Protein backbone atom coordinates (compact mmCIF):
# COMPACT_ATOMS: atom_id res chain seq x y z
CA UNK A 1 0.00 0.00 0.00
CA UNK A 2 1.33 3.45 -0.89
CA UNK A 3 2.16 5.69 2.03
CA UNK A 4 -0.26 8.60 2.35
CA UNK A 5 0.97 11.85 0.82
CA UNK A 6 0.73 14.83 3.15
CA UNK A 7 0.05 18.26 1.70
CA UNK A 8 -0.49 21.72 3.13
CA UNK A 9 -3.10 24.30 2.15
CA UNK A 10 -2.67 27.88 3.20
CA UNK A 11 -5.05 30.75 2.40
CA UNK A 12 -3.41 33.56 0.45
CA UNK A 13 -3.89 36.16 3.23
CA UNK A 14 -2.32 33.81 5.81
CA UNK A 15 0.63 33.14 3.51
CA UNK A 16 1.01 36.88 2.90
CA UNK A 17 1.16 37.54 6.63
CA UNK A 18 3.66 34.74 7.17
CA UNK A 19 5.87 35.75 4.25
CA UNK A 20 5.97 39.39 5.31
CA UNK A 21 7.34 38.22 8.66
CA UNK A 22 9.80 35.70 7.25
CA UNK A 23 11.07 37.90 4.41
CA UNK A 24 11.09 41.55 5.52
CA UNK A 25 14.06 42.21 3.30
CA UNK A 26 16.82 42.05 5.90
CA UNK A 27 18.20 38.69 4.77
CA UNK A 28 17.95 37.39 8.32
CA UNK A 29 16.36 34.21 9.66
CA UNK A 30 12.94 34.57 11.23
CA UNK A 31 10.53 32.11 12.78
CA UNK A 32 6.91 31.44 13.62
CA UNK A 33 4.53 28.61 14.43
CA UNK A 34 1.64 27.68 12.18
CA UNK A 35 -1.36 25.91 13.71
CA UNK A 36 -3.27 23.79 11.23
CA UNK A 37 -6.42 21.75 10.98
CA UNK A 38 -6.26 18.29 9.43
CA UNK A 39 -8.44 16.88 6.65
CA UNK A 40 -8.55 13.80 4.50
CA UNK A 41 -8.75 14.87 0.87
CA UNK A 42 -9.03 12.93 -2.35
CA UNK A 43 -5.25 13.00 -2.63
CA UNK A 44 -4.45 12.10 0.95
CA UNK A 45 -4.16 13.86 4.31
CA UNK A 46 -3.89 17.63 4.25
CA UNK A 47 -2.94 20.28 6.78
CA UNK A 48 -4.94 23.52 6.76
CA UNK A 49 -2.90 26.49 7.99
CA UNK A 50 -5.39 28.56 9.96
CA UNK A 51 -3.33 30.46 12.52
CA UNK A 52 0.11 32.03 12.64
CA UNK A 53 1.92 32.69 15.88
CA UNK A 54 4.63 35.20 15.05
CA UNK A 55 7.88 34.65 16.94
CA UNK A 56 9.24 38.10 17.75
CA UNK A 57 12.95 38.45 17.06
CA UNK A 58 14.98 38.58 20.24
CA UNK A 59 12.09 37.52 22.44
CA UNK A 60 10.46 34.46 20.92
CA UNK A 61 13.11 33.75 18.28
CA UNK A 62 16.50 33.82 19.95
CA UNK A 63 20.07 32.69 19.33
CA UNK A 64 20.12 28.90 19.43
CA UNK A 65 22.40 26.73 21.51
CA UNK A 66 23.14 24.43 18.60
CA UNK A 67 21.66 26.18 15.58
CA UNK A 68 21.75 29.79 14.46
CA UNK A 69 18.40 30.69 15.99
CA UNK A 70 15.58 28.87 17.66
CA UNK A 71 12.11 29.36 19.08
CA UNK A 72 12.35 30.14 22.78
CA UNK A 73 11.15 27.44 25.17
CA UNK A 74 8.37 29.69 26.48
CA UNK A 75 7.10 30.34 22.97
CA UNK A 76 7.21 26.68 22.08
CA UNK A 77 5.29 25.82 25.24
CA UNK A 78 2.62 28.46 24.54
CA UNK A 79 2.21 27.31 20.98
CA UNK A 80 2.12 23.63 21.90
CA UNK A 81 -0.52 24.16 24.56
CA UNK A 82 -2.58 26.16 22.13
CA UNK A 83 -2.26 23.39 19.54
CA UNK A 84 -3.34 20.83 22.13
CA UNK A 85 -6.28 22.85 23.43
CA UNK A 86 -7.57 23.65 19.94
CA UNK A 87 -6.87 20.23 18.43
CA UNK A 88 -4.53 21.65 15.80
CA UNK A 89 -1.28 20.48 14.27
CA UNK A 90 1.85 22.37 15.35
CA UNK A 91 4.26 23.44 12.62
CA UNK A 92 7.39 25.43 13.44
CA UNK A 93 8.50 27.49 10.46
CA UNK A 94 11.66 29.39 9.67
CA UNK A 95 13.27 30.78 6.57
CA UNK A 96 16.43 30.21 4.59
CA UNK A 97 17.99 32.26 1.87
CA UNK A 98 17.52 31.54 -1.78
CA UNK A 99 14.43 31.48 -3.93
CA UNK A 100 13.35 28.30 -5.68
CA UNK A 101 15.04 25.56 -3.67
CA UNK A 102 14.95 24.92 0.07
CA UNK A 103 15.80 22.04 2.37
CA UNK A 104 16.30 21.42 6.07
CA UNK A 105 19.86 21.59 7.25
CA UNK A 106 21.38 18.80 9.30
CA UNK A 107 21.05 21.05 12.35
CA UNK A 108 17.36 21.52 11.61
CA UNK A 109 16.73 17.78 11.34
CA UNK A 110 18.59 17.07 14.56
CA UNK A 111 16.46 19.64 16.36
CA UNK A 112 13.36 17.76 15.18
CA UNK A 113 14.73 14.55 16.69
CA UNK A 114 15.41 16.28 19.97
CA UNK A 115 12.18 18.16 20.31
CA UNK A 116 9.31 16.57 18.43
CA UNK A 117 8.72 13.41 20.47
CA UNK A 118 7.97 15.62 23.47
CA UNK A 119 5.79 17.92 21.39
CA UNK A 120 3.81 14.91 20.17
CA UNK A 121 3.22 13.94 23.79
CA UNK A 122 2.01 17.43 24.67
CA UNK A 123 -0.14 18.20 21.66
CA UNK A 124 -1.33 14.70 20.68
CA UNK A 125 -1.56 16.18 17.18
CA UNK A 126 0.75 16.03 14.16
CA UNK A 127 3.80 18.20 14.76
CA UNK A 128 6.48 19.24 12.34
CA UNK A 129 8.51 21.90 10.70
CA UNK A 130 8.39 24.03 7.59
CA UNK A 131 11.37 25.77 6.03
CA UNK A 132 10.71 28.48 3.48
CA UNK A 133 12.58 30.22 0.71
CA UNK A 134 10.95 32.98 -1.30
CA UNK A 135 9.33 30.58 -3.77
CA UNK A 136 9.77 27.24 -2.07
CA UNK A 137 8.62 25.38 1.01
CA UNK A 138 9.72 22.08 2.49
CA UNK A 139 8.20 20.29 5.44
CA UNK A 140 8.74 17.36 7.74
CA UNK A 141 5.84 15.95 9.71
CA UNK A 142 5.95 13.78 12.83
CA UNK A 143 2.69 11.91 13.26
CA UNK A 144 1.10 10.60 16.47
CA UNK A 145 1.49 7.04 15.24
CA UNK A 146 5.27 7.43 15.14
CA UNK A 147 5.66 7.92 11.39
CA UNK A 148 7.70 10.71 9.86
CA UNK A 149 6.59 12.10 6.52
CA UNK A 150 7.91 14.69 4.13
CA UNK A 151 5.49 17.38 3.00
CA UNK A 152 4.79 16.66 -0.67
CA UNK A 153 3.30 19.97 -1.73
CA UNK A 154 1.90 23.24 -0.49
CA UNK A 155 -1.03 24.91 -2.15
CA UNK A 156 -1.63 28.62 -1.57
CA UNK A 157 -5.37 29.13 -2.00
CA UNK A 158 -5.93 32.41 -3.76
CA UNK A 159 -6.15 33.79 -7.26
CA UNK A 160 -4.14 32.40 -8.83
CA UNK A 161 -3.56 29.20 -6.90
CA UNK A 162 0.14 28.79 -6.22
CA UNK A 163 2.03 25.60 -5.64
CA UNK A 164 5.12 25.52 -3.47
CA UNK A 165 7.57 22.63 -3.33
CA UNK A 166 11.04 22.14 -1.98
CA UNK A 167 12.28 22.47 -5.54
CA UNK A 168 10.64 23.29 -8.88
CA UNK A 169 8.55 20.43 -10.27
CA UNK A 170 9.67 18.73 -13.45
CA UNK A 171 7.94 20.00 -16.58
CA UNK A 172 5.68 17.42 -18.27
CA UNK A 173 7.57 15.26 -20.74
CA UNK A 174 4.50 14.55 -22.88
CA UNK A 175 1.95 17.13 -23.95
CA UNK A 176 -1.67 16.19 -23.36
CA UNK A 177 -2.92 15.39 -26.86
CA UNK A 178 -5.81 17.21 -28.44
CA UNK A 179 -5.56 20.55 -26.67
CA UNK A 180 -3.04 22.30 -28.90
CA UNK A 181 -5.00 25.50 -29.36
CA UNK A 182 -5.61 26.12 -25.66
CA UNK A 183 -2.15 24.97 -24.64
CA UNK A 184 -0.90 27.94 -26.67
CA UNK A 185 -2.66 30.09 -24.06
CA UNK A 186 -1.59 28.44 -20.84
CA UNK A 187 1.04 25.85 -21.68
CA UNK A 188 1.45 22.12 -21.23
CA UNK A 189 1.85 22.58 -17.50
CA UNK A 190 -1.54 24.26 -17.34
CA UNK A 191 -3.18 21.47 -19.33
CA UNK A 192 -1.59 18.90 -17.07
CA UNK A 193 -2.92 20.76 -14.04
CA UNK A 194 -6.42 20.71 -15.48
CA UNK A 195 -6.24 17.00 -16.17
CA UNK A 196 -5.35 16.34 -12.53
CA UNK A 197 -7.89 18.77 -11.07
CA UNK A 198 -11.09 17.56 -9.42
CA UNK A 199 -14.00 19.98 -9.68
CA UNK A 200 -17.32 19.70 -7.88
CA UNK A 201 -20.28 21.23 -9.70
CA UNK A 202 -23.16 21.90 -7.33
CA UNK A 203 -26.34 22.39 -9.32
CA UNK A 204 -26.64 20.95 -12.82
CA UNK A 205 -29.56 23.03 -14.05
CA UNK A 206 -29.29 25.46 -16.92
CA UNK A 207 -26.22 27.28 -15.66
CA UNK A 208 -24.55 24.20 -14.22
CA UNK A 209 -25.02 22.25 -17.44
CA UNK A 210 -23.03 24.90 -19.34
CA UNK A 211 -20.32 24.88 -16.66
CA UNK A 212 -20.06 21.10 -17.01
CA UNK A 213 -19.74 21.34 -20.78
CA UNK A 214 -17.07 24.04 -20.60
CA UNK A 215 -15.00 22.24 -17.97
CA UNK A 216 -15.28 18.98 -19.88
CA UNK A 217 -14.08 20.69 -23.06
CA UNK A 218 -11.20 22.32 -21.14
CA UNK A 219 -9.96 18.87 -20.18
CA UNK A 220 -10.68 18.91 -16.45
CA UNK A 221 -9.93 15.36 -15.43
CA UNK A 222 -12.23 14.61 -12.53
CA UNK A 223 -15.71 15.69 -11.58
CA UNK A 224 -18.10 15.43 -8.67
CA UNK A 225 -21.63 16.23 -9.87
CA UNK A 226 -24.29 17.13 -7.31
CA UNK A 227 -27.98 17.64 -8.12
CA UNK A 228 -31.10 15.80 -6.99
CA UNK A 229 -33.42 16.88 -9.80
CA UNK A 230 -34.69 15.23 -12.97
CA UNK A 231 -35.05 16.98 -16.30
CA UNK A 232 -38.41 18.54 -17.01
CA UNK A 233 -39.70 19.72 -20.36
CA UNK A 234 -39.47 23.28 -19.08
CA UNK A 235 -35.70 22.83 -18.61
CA UNK A 236 -34.96 21.82 -22.20
CA UNK A 237 -34.38 25.31 -23.64
CA UNK A 238 -31.48 25.80 -21.22
CA UNK A 239 -29.75 22.46 -20.84
CA UNK A 240 -26.78 21.71 -23.05
CA UNK A 241 -27.38 18.85 -25.50
CA UNK A 242 -30.58 17.81 -23.74
CA UNK A 243 -32.89 15.72 -25.90
CA UNK A 244 -36.66 15.74 -25.79
CA UNK A 245 -36.50 12.10 -24.74
CA UNK A 246 -34.55 13.10 -21.61
CA UNK A 247 -37.69 14.78 -20.32
CA UNK A 248 -40.45 13.20 -22.39
CA UNK A 249 -41.29 10.17 -20.32
CA UNK A 250 -41.20 12.18 -17.15
CA UNK A 251 -43.55 14.73 -18.64
CA UNK A 252 -45.84 11.95 -19.90
CA UNK A 253 -45.97 10.44 -16.44
CA UNK A 254 -46.78 13.85 -15.05
CA UNK A 255 -49.66 14.35 -17.51
CA UNK A 256 -51.04 10.94 -16.60
CA UNK A 257 -50.77 11.80 -12.93
CA UNK A 258 -48.25 9.07 -12.31
CA UNK A 259 -45.42 9.33 -9.83
CA UNK A 260 -42.92 7.36 -11.90
CA UNK A 261 -39.53 9.10 -11.61
CA UNK A 262 -38.39 8.18 -15.09
CA UNK A 263 -37.10 11.41 -16.56
CA UNK A 264 -33.34 11.56 -16.86
CA UNK A 265 -31.34 12.95 -13.99
CA UNK A 266 -29.66 16.30 -14.53
CA UNK A 267 -26.42 14.75 -13.28
CA UNK A 268 -26.69 12.02 -15.92
CA UNK A 269 -27.05 14.58 -18.69
CA UNK A 270 -24.03 16.52 -17.43
CA UNK A 271 -22.01 13.30 -17.19
CA UNK A 272 -22.99 12.37 -20.74
CA UNK A 273 -21.84 15.75 -22.01
CA UNK A 274 -18.57 15.67 -20.07
CA UNK A 275 -17.73 12.19 -21.34
CA UNK A 276 -18.49 13.22 -24.89
CA UNK A 277 -16.04 16.12 -24.48
CA UNK A 278 -13.42 14.22 -22.49
CA UNK A 279 -13.78 10.42 -22.57
CA UNK A 280 -10.97 10.15 -20.02
CA UNK A 281 -12.82 12.19 -17.40
CA UNK A 282 -13.62 10.47 -14.12
CA UNK A 283 -17.08 11.34 -12.80
CA UNK A 284 -18.71 10.75 -9.42
CA UNK A 285 -22.42 11.47 -9.20
CA UNK A 286 -24.58 12.40 -6.24
CA UNK A 287 -28.29 12.52 -7.06
CA UNK A 288 -28.96 14.65 -4.03
CA UNK A 289 -28.41 18.14 -2.74
CA UNK A 290 -25.03 19.21 -1.43
CA UNK A 291 -26.52 18.99 2.05
CA UNK A 292 -26.32 15.20 1.77
CA UNK A 293 -23.34 14.20 3.98
CA UNK A 294 -21.73 12.02 1.32
CA UNK A 295 -22.01 14.72 -1.36
CA UNK A 296 -20.61 17.35 0.99
CA UNK A 297 -17.61 15.23 1.97
CA UNK A 298 -16.91 14.40 -1.68
CA UNK A 299 -16.94 18.11 -2.51
CA UNK A 300 -14.67 18.81 0.46
CA UNK A 301 -12.13 16.44 -1.10
CA UNK A 302 -12.12 18.35 -4.41
CA UNK A 303 -9.73 20.99 -5.71
CA UNK A 304 -12.43 23.47 -6.70
CA UNK A 305 -16.18 23.94 -6.32
CA UNK A 306 -18.44 25.58 -8.88
CA UNK A 307 -21.66 26.64 -7.18
CA UNK A 308 -24.51 26.92 -9.67
CA UNK A 309 -27.40 26.34 -7.27
CA UNK A 310 -29.06 29.31 -5.62
CA UNK A 311 -30.75 27.86 -2.54
CA UNK A 312 -29.72 29.18 0.86
CA UNK A 313 -28.90 25.61 1.82
CA UNK A 314 -26.51 25.06 -1.10
CA UNK A 315 -24.79 28.36 -0.44
CA UNK A 316 -24.42 27.60 3.25
CA UNK A 317 -22.93 24.16 2.76
CA UNK A 318 -20.56 25.24 -0.02
CA UNK A 319 -19.51 28.27 2.01
CA UNK A 320 -18.74 25.95 4.90
CA UNK A 321 -16.68 23.61 2.72
CA UNK A 322 -14.65 26.52 1.35
CA UNK A 323 -13.85 27.90 4.79
CA UNK A 324 -13.50 24.68 6.73
CA UNK A 325 -11.58 22.64 4.15
CA UNK A 326 -9.84 25.43 2.18
CA UNK A 327 -11.42 24.37 -1.11
CA UNK A 328 -11.66 27.42 -3.39
CA UNK A 329 -14.85 28.01 -5.29
CA UNK A 330 -16.83 30.26 -7.56
CA UNK A 331 -20.51 31.06 -7.23
CA UNK A 332 -22.34 32.01 -10.42
CA UNK A 333 -25.89 33.17 -10.87
CA UNK A 334 -28.34 35.18 -12.91
CA UNK A 335 -31.02 37.39 -11.42
CA UNK A 336 -33.97 38.70 -13.39
CA UNK A 337 -36.09 41.07 -11.36
CA UNK A 338 -39.61 41.81 -12.55
CA UNK A 339 -42.36 44.07 -11.34
CA UNK A 340 -45.75 42.72 -10.28
CA UNK A 341 -47.10 43.22 -13.80
CA UNK A 342 -44.26 41.12 -15.23
CA UNK A 343 -42.17 43.97 -16.61
CA UNK A 344 -38.49 43.10 -16.49
CA UNK A 345 -36.82 45.74 -14.38
CA UNK A 346 -33.30 44.48 -13.90
CA UNK A 347 -31.08 41.68 -15.18
CA UNK A 348 -27.68 41.00 -13.76
CA UNK A 349 -25.17 38.21 -13.92
CA UNK A 350 -23.03 37.71 -10.84
CA UNK A 351 -19.95 35.64 -10.19
CA UNK A 352 -18.19 35.60 -6.86
CA UNK A 353 -14.92 34.00 -5.86
CA UNK A 354 -15.15 31.96 -2.68
CA UNK A 355 -11.77 31.90 -0.96
CA UNK A 356 -10.88 30.65 2.51
CA UNK A 357 -10.03 33.31 5.02
CA UNK A 358 -11.62 36.00 2.90
CA UNK A 359 -15.08 37.52 3.09
CA UNK A 360 -17.53 34.63 2.92
CA UNK A 361 -21.15 34.44 1.79
CA UNK A 362 -22.36 35.20 5.32
CA UNK A 363 -20.18 38.31 5.47
CA UNK A 364 -21.57 39.36 2.10
CA UNK A 365 -25.11 38.80 3.43
CA UNK A 366 -25.89 36.41 0.62
CA UNK A 367 -27.29 33.67 2.85
CA UNK A 368 -30.65 34.36 4.44
CA UNK A 369 -31.00 32.73 7.85
CA UNK A 370 -34.79 32.57 7.63
CA UNK A 371 -34.69 31.01 4.19
CA UNK A 372 -32.20 28.51 5.57
CA UNK A 373 -34.67 27.63 8.32
CA UNK A 374 -37.45 27.13 5.77
CA UNK A 375 -35.31 24.95 3.53
CA UNK A 376 -34.47 22.67 6.43
CA UNK A 377 -38.06 22.32 7.57
CA UNK A 378 -39.35 18.85 6.60
CA UNK A 379 -41.56 18.94 3.51
CA UNK A 380 -44.72 17.88 5.33
CA UNK A 381 -44.45 20.78 7.75
CA UNK A 382 -43.61 23.20 4.97
CA UNK A 383 -46.77 22.21 3.11
CA UNK A 384 -48.88 22.48 6.24
CA UNK A 385 -47.46 25.95 6.83
CA UNK A 386 -49.26 27.07 3.66
CA UNK A 387 -46.27 28.91 2.29
CA UNK A 388 -46.89 30.21 -1.18
CA UNK A 389 -44.76 28.07 -3.50
CA UNK A 390 -41.98 29.90 -5.24
CA UNK A 391 -42.80 31.15 -8.71
CA UNK A 392 -40.22 29.73 -11.17
CA UNK A 393 -37.51 32.30 -11.70
CA UNK A 394 -37.12 33.74 -15.19
CA UNK A 395 -34.20 32.08 -16.96
CA UNK A 396 -32.57 32.35 -20.38
CA UNK A 397 -29.72 30.22 -21.76
CA UNK A 398 -27.79 33.17 -23.09
CA UNK A 399 -27.74 34.82 -19.68
CA UNK A 400 -26.66 31.53 -18.12
CA UNK A 401 -23.94 31.40 -20.77
CA UNK A 402 -22.54 34.76 -19.65
CA UNK A 403 -22.39 33.56 -16.05
CA UNK A 404 -20.92 30.17 -16.95
CA UNK A 405 -18.31 31.70 -19.23
CA UNK A 406 -17.18 34.22 -16.62
CA UNK A 407 -17.11 31.60 -13.87
CA UNK A 408 -15.24 28.92 -15.78
CA UNK A 409 -12.76 31.42 -17.17
CA UNK A 410 -12.05 32.67 -13.68
CA UNK A 411 -11.55 29.07 -12.53
CA UNK A 412 -9.27 28.40 -15.49
CA UNK A 413 -7.10 31.46 -14.90
CA UNK A 414 -6.82 30.75 -11.18
CA UNK A 415 -5.80 27.14 -11.85
CA UNK A 416 -3.27 27.67 -14.63
CA UNK A 417 -1.83 30.88 -13.22
CA UNK A 418 -3.20 33.43 -15.66
CA UNK A 419 -4.93 35.67 -13.12
CA UNK A 420 -3.47 39.12 -13.49
CA UNK A 421 -3.55 41.74 -10.78
CA UNK A 422 -5.76 41.55 -7.74
CA UNK A 423 -9.21 40.56 -8.95
CA UNK A 424 -12.22 41.88 -7.13
CA UNK A 425 -14.13 39.29 -5.22
CA UNK A 426 -17.34 39.65 -7.17
CA UNK A 427 -18.24 40.77 -10.65
CA UNK A 428 -21.73 41.96 -11.55
CA UNK A 429 -22.51 42.35 -15.22
CA UNK A 430 -25.70 44.05 -16.41
CA UNK A 431 -26.25 42.67 -19.91
CA UNK A 432 -28.89 45.19 -20.96
CA UNK A 433 -26.26 47.93 -20.97
CA UNK A 434 -22.57 48.60 -20.51
CA UNK A 435 -22.62 48.62 -16.72
CA UNK A 436 -20.13 46.48 -14.87
CA UNK A 437 -19.64 46.48 -11.11
CA UNK A 438 -16.83 45.00 -9.09
CA UNK A 439 -17.32 44.28 -5.41
CA UNK A 440 -15.09 43.26 -2.58
CA UNK A 441 -16.76 42.88 0.79
CA UNK A 442 -14.84 43.17 4.02
CA UNK A 443 -14.83 40.03 6.11
CA UNK A 444 -16.29 40.27 9.60
CA UNK A 445 -13.42 39.50 11.96
CA UNK A 446 -15.77 37.54 14.24
CA UNK A 447 -17.41 35.56 11.45
CA UNK A 448 -17.84 31.98 12.67
CA UNK A 449 -16.94 30.68 9.21
CA UNK A 450 -14.17 32.83 7.70
CA UNK A 451 -13.01 34.75 10.75
CA UNK A 452 -9.56 34.05 12.14
CA UNK A 453 -10.78 33.63 15.70
CA UNK A 454 -9.94 30.64 17.82
CA UNK A 455 -13.55 29.39 17.72
CA UNK A 456 -14.29 29.83 14.04
CA UNK A 457 -14.68 26.91 11.64
CA UNK A 458 -11.91 28.28 9.41
CA UNK A 459 -9.50 25.50 8.54
CA UNK A 460 -10.95 23.04 11.02
CA UNK A 461 -11.11 20.23 8.48
CA UNK A 462 -12.33 16.92 9.82
CA UNK A 463 -12.45 18.05 13.45
CA UNK A 464 -15.88 19.59 12.94
CA UNK A 465 -18.93 18.32 11.14
CA UNK A 466 -20.05 20.18 8.05
CA UNK A 467 -23.58 21.68 8.20
CA UNK A 468 -25.19 18.73 6.46
CA UNK A 469 -28.58 17.11 6.93
CA UNK A 470 -28.38 13.63 8.35
CA UNK A 471 -31.43 11.97 6.82
CA UNK A 472 -32.93 9.20 8.86
CA UNK A 473 -31.36 10.33 12.10
CA UNK A 474 -33.59 9.33 14.97
CA UNK A 475 -35.78 6.88 13.04
Amino acid at each position, binding site marked *: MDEPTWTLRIPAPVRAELWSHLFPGDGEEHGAVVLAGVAQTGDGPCLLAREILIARDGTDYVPGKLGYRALSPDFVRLAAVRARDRGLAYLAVHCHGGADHVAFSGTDLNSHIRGYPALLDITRQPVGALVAARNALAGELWLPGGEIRALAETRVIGEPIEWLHSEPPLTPSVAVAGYDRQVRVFGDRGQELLSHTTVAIVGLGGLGSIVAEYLGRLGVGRFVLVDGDRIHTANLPRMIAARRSDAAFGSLAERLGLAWPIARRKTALAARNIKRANPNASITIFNSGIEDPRAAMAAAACDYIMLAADSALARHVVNAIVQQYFVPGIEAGVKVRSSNDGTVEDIHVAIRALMPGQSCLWCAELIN*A*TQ*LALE*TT*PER*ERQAAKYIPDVPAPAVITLNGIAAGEATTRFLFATVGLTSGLPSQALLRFPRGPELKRQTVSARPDCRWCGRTSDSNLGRGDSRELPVLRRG*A*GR
Partner: protein
Amino acid sequence: MSEATVTSAVAEALGGLRRAFPEAQIAETSDASGGLFVIIEPIQLGPEFSPKSTWLGMHLSPLLPDADTYPLYIGGGVTRADGSPITDTAIQSVAWQSRSALQLSRRSTRHDAAVSTPALKAGNVIAWFRSL
Protein backbone atom coordinates in the same frame (compact mmCIF):
# COMPACT_ATOMS: atom_id res chain seq x y z
CA MET B 1 -36.47 11.50 21.66
CA SER B 2 -32.89 11.02 22.65
CA GLU B 3 -30.81 14.15 22.38
CA ALA B 4 -27.91 11.99 21.30
CA THR B 5 -29.29 11.94 17.74
CA VAL B 6 -29.53 15.70 17.33
CA THR B 7 -26.76 18.12 16.48
CA SER B 8 -24.81 19.66 19.33
CA ALA B 9 -26.20 23.08 18.44
CA VAL B 10 -29.78 21.77 18.65
CA ALA B 11 -29.02 20.17 22.00
CA GLU B 12 -27.59 23.46 23.21
CA ALA B 13 -30.64 25.34 21.96
CA LEU B 14 -32.92 22.90 23.77
CA GLY B 15 -31.00 23.58 26.95
CA GLY B 16 -31.47 27.29 26.40
CA LEU B 17 -35.22 26.84 26.03
CA ARG B 18 -35.38 24.83 29.25
CA ARG B 19 -33.56 27.63 31.07
CA ALA B 20 -35.81 30.28 29.51
CA PHE B 21 -39.01 28.41 30.39
CA PRO B 22 -38.16 26.68 33.69
CA GLU B 23 -41.81 26.18 34.68
CA ALA B 24 -42.86 24.58 31.40
CA GLN B 25 -42.78 21.06 30.06
CA ILE B 26 -40.92 20.67 26.78
CA ALA B 27 -41.89 17.84 24.43
CA GLU B 28 -39.41 16.93 21.69
CA THR B 29 -39.85 15.06 18.42
CA SER B 30 -37.03 14.33 16.02
CA ASP B 31 -37.26 15.71 12.50
CA ALA B 32 -35.10 12.79 11.31
CA SER B 33 -32.33 15.13 10.14
CA GLY B 34 -30.64 16.13 13.39
CA GLY B 35 -33.21 18.77 14.37
CA LEU B 36 -36.19 18.76 16.71
CA PHE B 37 -39.80 19.84 16.86
CA VAL B 38 -40.41 21.20 20.35
CA ILE B 39 -43.61 22.14 22.14
CA ILE B 40 -43.31 24.23 25.29
CA GLU B 41 -46.30 24.26 27.60
CA PRO B 42 -47.60 26.30 29.24
CA ILE B 43 -46.55 29.78 28.21
CA GLN B 44 -48.39 32.76 29.67
CA LEU B 45 -50.11 35.22 27.36
CA GLY B 46 -51.80 37.23 30.04
CA PRO B 47 -55.41 38.18 30.88
CA GLU B 48 -55.86 40.03 27.57
CA PHE B 49 -56.10 36.67 25.83
CA SER B 50 -58.28 33.64 26.07
CA PRO B 51 -57.01 31.23 27.16
CA LYS B 52 -54.49 33.09 29.32
CA SER B 53 -51.89 30.44 28.63
CA THR B 54 -51.18 28.22 25.67
CA TRP B 55 -48.42 26.16 24.14
CA LEU B 56 -45.51 27.39 22.00
CA GLY B 57 -44.05 25.28 19.20
CA MET B 58 -41.09 25.57 16.88
CA HIS B 59 -38.70 23.61 14.72
CA LEU B 60 -35.07 23.64 15.87
CA SER B 61 -33.29 23.40 12.54
CA PRO B 62 -30.31 21.01 12.31
CA LEU B 63 -28.46 24.00 10.89
CA LEU B 64 -28.59 26.02 14.10
CA PRO B 65 -27.09 28.42 14.99
CA ASP B 66 -26.81 29.67 11.41
CA ALA B 67 -30.48 29.06 10.61
CA ASP B 68 -33.24 31.25 12.04
CA THR B 69 -35.98 29.71 14.18
CA TYR B 70 -39.01 30.31 12.02
CA PRO B 71 -41.93 30.24 12.15
CA LEU B 72 -43.27 29.78 15.68
CA TYR B 73 -46.66 28.37 16.63
CA ILE B 74 -49.15 28.79 19.46
CA GLY B 75 -52.51 27.19 20.19
CA GLY B 76 -55.02 27.65 17.40
CA GLY B 77 -57.83 28.60 19.75
CA VAL B 78 -56.18 31.72 21.17
CA THR B 79 -58.34 34.81 20.89
CA ARG B 80 -58.57 38.13 22.65
CA ALA B 81 -60.43 38.00 25.94
CA ASP B 82 -62.70 40.87 24.81
CA GLY B 83 -63.58 39.04 21.60
CA SER B 84 -61.89 41.49 19.25
CA PRO B 85 -60.00 39.86 16.37
CA ILE B 86 -56.28 39.23 16.33
CA THR B 87 -55.24 40.30 12.87
CA ASP B 88 -51.78 40.63 11.47
CA THR B 89 -50.30 39.54 8.17
CA ALA B 90 -47.79 37.46 10.11
CA ILE B 91 -50.51 35.31 11.70
CA GLN B 92 -52.44 32.51 10.02
CA SER B 93 -54.35 29.43 11.14
CA VAL B 94 -52.65 26.15 10.25
CA ALA B 95 -52.31 22.59 11.42
CA TRP B 96 -48.92 21.85 12.97
CA GLN B 97 -47.77 18.62 14.50
CA SER B 98 -51.36 17.40 14.47
CA ARG B 99 -52.49 20.45 16.42
CA SER B 100 -54.65 23.38 15.47
CA ALA B 101 -52.23 26.29 15.60
CA LEU B 102 -51.68 29.95 14.93
CA GLN B 103 -48.52 30.30 12.85
CA LEU B 104 -46.49 33.36 13.83
CA SER B 105 -44.27 34.23 10.85
CA ARG B 106 -41.86 36.77 12.30
CA ARG B 107 -38.55 36.77 10.46
CA SER B 108 -35.33 37.78 12.16
CA THR B 109 -34.09 40.74 10.18
CA ARG B 110 -30.57 40.72 11.63
CA HIS B 111 -29.91 37.13 12.55
CA ASP B 112 -26.61 36.79 14.39
CA ALA B 113 -25.57 33.19 14.94
CA ALA B 114 -23.67 34.19 18.07
CA VAL B 115 -26.67 35.69 19.91
CA SER B 116 -29.92 34.89 18.05
CA THR B 117 -30.86 31.78 19.98
CA PRO B 118 -34.24 30.04 19.73
CA ALA B 119 -34.87 31.03 23.36
CA LEU B 120 -34.31 34.68 22.49
CA LYS B 121 -36.49 34.33 19.41
CA ALA B 122 -39.27 32.73 21.44
CA GLY B 123 -39.19 35.57 23.96
CA ASN B 124 -39.25 38.20 21.24
CA VAL B 125 -42.14 36.60 19.35
CA ILE B 126 -44.23 36.13 22.52
CA ALA B 127 -43.62 39.75 23.42
CA TRP B 128 -44.66 40.84 19.93
CA PHE B 129 -47.84 38.75 20.06
CA ARG B 130 -48.79 40.19 23.43
CA SER B 131 -48.32 43.69 22.04
CA LEU B 132 -50.86 43.23 19.24
